[in-house]
């Protein structure tokens, strides 16, 4: 006799299943067979996998199942008014003032009243609200959604597919180079704890180039649980600079994923700047599907208090002659915990692969912790791959040199910390954006920017 194995579900795990049951009929695309099937398949996968826990290697340092005591209710969009002052407060001055094409995702939906849709269209970008597109998905959307470097084994992405309420789908036309960045500003809302699930798609047609900034900031919602997935497909010779700025509220949970597919002779440069949320899991799954391409995924993480920030990368060299670079710098104070997991897979045919990875942590307190785990699975023999990691405190001799020149101790420490971060920030090509993040770092340090 076979006893059915009753799967034990935590409160949060069950809550997501209940959330889907309740919301299902009202989610965008509920009446479209393709979308409904996509969501059903996703929730079924989630149901099988449950929330990730520490016995899964990729979640070793972030036991999400243990950390999430409850799932907050799916947010209800109220169309709340947002003015320039709100934006400046949420993003900080320098970021708010960057000349960009702005798109606002508020309470999980694209706010066309606040966004520069017309500007983008005339610049050669096709843009649709995901919520609208899901009601009657076009062929190109069906070929992209859930099909770009898909992760069947990731239940956080599966939850996003099941519960996504809105987002933005962008297609940059062939050969188009945008003269200013696209800034997708993800704001939460106000009031009681809530979950927000957004999904975005970025298709860079052959020869196109864009800078995409995704900022995640708070308007004051207590207890935000955010799940944001962005799928990016780069055609031949396309280039995307993708900068993600996480400055969520101090009690927020931020689960983010980028699913990236890179065509031939293309370039994907990503940068993660994290300072805000209590718990962050930022994943990048990137796959080279065309030879001769390059990828740079870097970041600067500024953590204090009891923040927990887990950055996990998986880069697959599935074709020859591609280059990947990763540089992550974490500054950790208080009892903060920084995690960097970098997995590189090189398949047997991926000759002339060049992959390098470096993770560095500056520990400002005795109780801060940094976990660094490189994983290299290399099956080709004509490759160059390397990885390194360092962690340590501020150099006492350097501090003394600065102080002996009259620079007071606090200022000397700040100078050295900013120097540490600067090396990572140099990976950002857009100068004004680099300056803005430099100013944000100074602000985090409590230093008056010059």
């Amino acid at each position, binding site marked *: 006799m076979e006893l059915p194995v009753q799967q034990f579900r935590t409160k949060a795990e069950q809550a997501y299943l209940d959330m889907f049951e309740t919301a299902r009929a009202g989610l965008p695309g509920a009446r479209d067979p393709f979308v409904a099937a996509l969501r059903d398949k996703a929730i079924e996968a989630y149901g099988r996998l449950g929330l990730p826990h520490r016995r899964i290697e990729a979640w070793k340092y972030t036991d999400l199942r243990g950390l999430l005591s409850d799932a907050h209710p799916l947010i209800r969009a109220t169309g709340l008014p947002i003015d320039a002052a709100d934006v400046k407060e949420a993003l900080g001055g320098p970021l708010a003032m960057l000349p960009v094409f702005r798109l606002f995702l508020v309470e999980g939906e694209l706010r066309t009243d606040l966004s520069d849709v017309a500007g983008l269209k005339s610049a050669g970008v096709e843009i649709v609200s995901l919520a609208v597109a899901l009601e009657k998905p076009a062929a190109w959307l069906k070929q992209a959604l859930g099909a770009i470097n898909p992760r069947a084994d990731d239940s956080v992405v599966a939850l996003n597919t099941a519960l996504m309420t809105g987002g933005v789908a962008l297609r940059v036309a062939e050969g188009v180079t945008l003269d200013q960045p696209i800034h997708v500003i993800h704001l939460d809302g106000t009031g009681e704890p809530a979950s927000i699930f957004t999904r975005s798609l970025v298709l860079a047609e052959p020869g196109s180039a864009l800078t995409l900034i995704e900022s995640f900031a708070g308007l004051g919602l207590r207890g935000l649980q955010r799940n944001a997935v962005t799928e990016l497909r780069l055609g031949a010779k396309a280039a995307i600079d993708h900068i993600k700025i996480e400055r969520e509220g101090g009690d927020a949970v931020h689960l983010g994923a980028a699913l990236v597919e890179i065509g031939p002779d293309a370039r994907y440069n990503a940068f993660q700047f994290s300072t805000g949320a209590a718990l962050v899991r930022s994943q990048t799954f990137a796959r080279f599907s065309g030879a001769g391409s390059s990828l740079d995924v870097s970041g600067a993480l500024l953590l204090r208090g009891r923040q927990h920030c887990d950055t996990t990368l998986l880069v697959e060299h599935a074709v020859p002659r591609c280059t990947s670079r990763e540089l992550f710098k974490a500054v950790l104070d208080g009892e903060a915990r920084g995690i960097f997991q970098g997995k590189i897979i090189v398949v047997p045919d991926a000759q002339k692969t060049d992959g390098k990875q470096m993770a560095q942590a500056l520990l400002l307190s005795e109780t801060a912790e940094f976990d660094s785990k490189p994983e290299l699975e290399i099956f080709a023999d004509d490759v160059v791959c390397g990885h390194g990691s360092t962690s340590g405190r501020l150099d006492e001799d350097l501090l003394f040199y*600065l102080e002996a*020149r*009259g620079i007071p101790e606090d*200022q000397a420490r700040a100078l*050295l910390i*900013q*120097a*540490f971060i600067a*090396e990572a920030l140099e990976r950002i090509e857009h100068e004004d954006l680099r300056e803005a993040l430099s100013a944000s770092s100074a602000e985090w340090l409590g230093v008056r920017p010059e």
Partner: protein
Amino acid sequence: MLEIKNLHVNVDGREILKGLDLSLPAGEVHAIMGPNGSGKSTLAYVLAGKNDYEVTAGSITWNGENLLAMEPSERAAAGVFLAFQYPMEIPGVATMTFLRAAVNAVRKARGEAELSTPDLLKLVRAKAKLLKIDPDMLKRPLNVGFSGGEKKRNEILQMALLEPSLCVLDETDSGLDIDALRIVAEGVNALRSKDRSMLVITHYQRLLNYIVPDRVHVLSDGRVARSGGPELALELEQSGYAEFGGKAA
């Protein structure tokens, strides 16, 4: 006026300075010589206030103030400047950023107005020219990729910008060729004045041909073993440090 009285200093639990006495009046240049291990660099670091140098007895007063009670940055504000024997490289901190922070920190502490960036740049360029420092080097991170001679000239540039009243030069001549030595010496001599005192710490007499001291002190085993006029340095060049417990290198 610098007054060091009965200074005892431990480093890593070992006593290095064993009752050092020294008086340096305003406007004078004194040379400190001595064999390896006599405590020359220890004296320099203690004056600048480095951690790990434990003063177990004695006093250091600078213009009547207790120097030992002051933090390193406070000592700089009070006019103390140490030209390091091995200047530090600081990747990620541009030389100009560093100079601006240092100059304005000291000016602020002295109650003077901070210099605007254009004014500072003009000043820095002028002083750099005298020391034959290529202005392009100022855009680079501090001392990164600089040769030994360039680093030493950079120390003297900082000295010229910060206008200290007590200059401690820790083996500034080490690693310099004749031309660099001449440029550095000219830079130092240009800063000599009746309001400025200098301690020139050196192993070799050669530097003192260019920077002629008012007095020479020989350190041995943590104390001043002998003091004299500039001719003492020439005597030492003849006889070596054997008399002072120095071993041949």
